[in-house]
């Protein structure tokens, strides 16, 4: 009877909850597929609720970003292994997987045959690993980018609100957040920028610290210079001056970048050298060649009382003479320099990603051990409790039998120790067997 109960405990806790993750991401699916599967934030709650209502799904979470759509579910173990229905897209997939593909098909009106070639599927321990990697930004297109953690947290919040994230997914996600935090604090994975515009902003911060109150001068017009200026404004620059051969075009750019917190202005190109001293950061992209020479840059520095000036030269041929970089207080970075820094930073991220992968592996093992050993621990607890009840019962019986010649306190303590030791030794093989079963079930998964 007791063995049956222990067996049931093992079975109910280990076999009836199956973690399954199904999804597509930037590496497996083209944008044409991802955009059809993307679920906008305002529909996420409804989608999560619908997914959680699918047959066999106990808990559910949907992560939908521009680079990935993933469905994380806790499936009813009874469904696992059941035969797939004969269907055009079944292809021998187990029922839980098919159920999720069907959800995508029905909810998003995307044909299953369109999705299936791009899908990846992770179960149990591998699903945990994938989730930890996603939250830690190791699976992102730009490894180390910080937005993904916020997006996972948003999905988690919505999942909790609609009651789809419960006793199993909730601790798993909280663990994922702490793993992501650990990766961020123990590695440098998120500390280096990898795009040209963000590298320029990062360099500006190394010169000026905070960009708050700094003035940016845009000389010439171009996509890259526009993007860099926007990046600097995002980082806190508060004034933007634009100088262009066509003044009306300069005005258009200035108007486009003006916000309530940004003051913009136009400098006629013929007054550029008289006015350039006002700028802390000068982005040039005219391609006219040698707009800034050591001579005019020296004058500019004098007018700035030697306060540093940062030239971001995106033009080819270069607008800023390389010799300007030799002047004390002038820092010149051309497009090659910026790209070089971006490449260096990517290498740093890649090195740090290895360290981050080790942290994730360690944490996956720790989490899996805890979760997968839980049924065994529960069963062992039952076993020990039952044994203790029997021991206490036998002790009471023997004490009553000896009531005419009661045992002394030392004798009672010795009997207590003896019975404890006997119980422990007798139960040891069973406890070891239970642990072995748990370990076997883990390796099977």
């Amino acid at each position, binding site marked *: 009877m007791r063995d049956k109960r222990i067996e049931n405990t093992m079975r109910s806790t280990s076999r009836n909850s199956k973690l399954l993750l199904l999804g597509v991401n930037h590496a497996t699916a083209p944008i044409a597929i991802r955009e059809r599967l993307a679920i906008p934030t305002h529909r996420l709650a409804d989608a999560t609720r619908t997914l959680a209502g699918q047959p066999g799904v106990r808990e559910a979470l949907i992560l939908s970003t521009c680079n990935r759509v993933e469905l994380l579910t806790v499936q009813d173990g009874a469904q696992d292994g059941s035969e797939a229905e004969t269907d055009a897209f079944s292809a021998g997939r187990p029922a839980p997987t098919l159920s999720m593909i069907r959800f995508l098909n029905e909810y998003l009106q995307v044909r299953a045959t369109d999705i299936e070639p791009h899908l990846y599927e992770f179960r149990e321990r591998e699903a945990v690993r994938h989730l930890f990697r996603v939250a830690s930004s190791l699976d992102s297109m730009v490894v180390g980018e910080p937005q993904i953690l916020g997006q996972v947290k948003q999905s988690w919040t919505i999942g909790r609100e609609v009651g789809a994230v419960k006793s199993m997914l909730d601790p798993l996600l909280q663990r994922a957040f702490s793993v992501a935090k650990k990766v961020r604090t123990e590695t*440098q994975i998120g*500390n280096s920028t990898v795009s040209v515009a963000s590298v320029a902003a990062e*360099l500006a911060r190394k*010169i000026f610290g905070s960009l708050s109150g700094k003035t940016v001068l845009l000389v010439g017009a171009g996509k890259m210079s526009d993007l860099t200026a926007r990046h600097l404004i995002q980082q806190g620059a508060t004034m933007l001056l634009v100088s262009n051969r066509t003044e009306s075009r300069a005005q258009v750019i200035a108007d486009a970048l003006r916000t309530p917190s940004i003051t913009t202005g136009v400098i006629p190109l013929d007054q550029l050298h008289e006015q350039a001293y006002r700028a802390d950061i000068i982005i040039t992209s005219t391609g006219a060649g040698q707009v800034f020479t050591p001579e005019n840059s020296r004058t500019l520095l004098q007018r700035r009382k*030697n306060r*540093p000036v940062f030239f971001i030269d995106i033009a080819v041929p270069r607008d800023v003479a390389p010799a300007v970089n030799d002047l004390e207080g002038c*820092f010149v970075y051309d497009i090659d320099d910026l790209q*070089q820094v971006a490449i260096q930073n990517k290498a*740093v991220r890649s090195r740090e990603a290895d360290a981050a992968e080790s942290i994730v592996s360690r944490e996956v093992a720790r989490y899996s051990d805890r979760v997968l050993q839980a049924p065994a621990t529960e069963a062992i607890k039952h076993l020990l409790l039952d044994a203790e009840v029997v021991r206490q019962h036998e002790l009471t019986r023997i004490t009553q039998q000896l009531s005419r010649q009661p045992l002394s306190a030392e004798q009672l303590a010795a009997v207590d120790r003896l019975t404890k030791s006997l119980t422990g030794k007798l139960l040891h093989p069973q406890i070891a067997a239970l642990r072995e079963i748990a370990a076997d079930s883990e390796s099977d998964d």
Partner: protein
Amino acid sequence: MSLLWLRLAVILYGIAALAVLPAALYNRPRWRHIALPSAMGGAFFHFVSITETLYAAHRALPIDTHETLSMLGLLLVVAFLILAVHYRTVSFGMFLLPVAVLLAIVPAFHPGHERIVYPLVRTGWLLLHIALLLAAYAALFLSLIASLLYLIQERRLKQKRTESKRGWLPPLETLDQIGLNALRFGLPCMTAGLLIGSVLALQSIGLAFFADPKVLLSIAMWIAYILMIFIRSHSGLRGRRAVYLSSFVFLVMLAVWAANSLSAVHRFKAP
């Protein structure tokens, strides 16, 4: 007991000085969490030790060289902690903390036994004179380090060696601000310290005081200090030339310090 606290402070400074290296060079927050509390704990025990020593000697100021050096060490650690909190940088610890260890280690393990004979040492004004001048020295040292770090950071940026892993230096403008603010803090301290010292010496020694080599060098240092602030503020002097200027004033400061052996006024202790 005060020696025990001082030794404990030296050990904590040592831990902080070691922990600050990975914290600053490799931007490891875990080491930062060791360096800052250690430095803070060290400063606390150092303060307790100095207070106990001075209280036991029935005076309120450090007189022998060891005590003075030890107090300068404490001021440097306090400067490091202020920078860490205000500018969120521990880079200065790489320079300030080892110097603080060196300044405190001698009084901790080989304390002096000089007996104080000079009557003025019991006045609060003299305490102020010494404390203000020590603060000015610490500020000057800090300014010199800031200028050196500025130079390193400037070279790194010019040579385009900007790998983030070694991005341990604060931004150029922050370094410039730290250097200039340290000088601006040091100037009133030095001015007030010298004025108080001069008045006290005039009262007890008379005009002969102005013939003392240390006094003359101190006045030269004060003028150099003012010139340095003026040049830096008005011409925006930075980089290499700022380092030269700071180094020059620092050398004058060392000369002033060393002039104790030549000074008749600054020998307060009996042999």
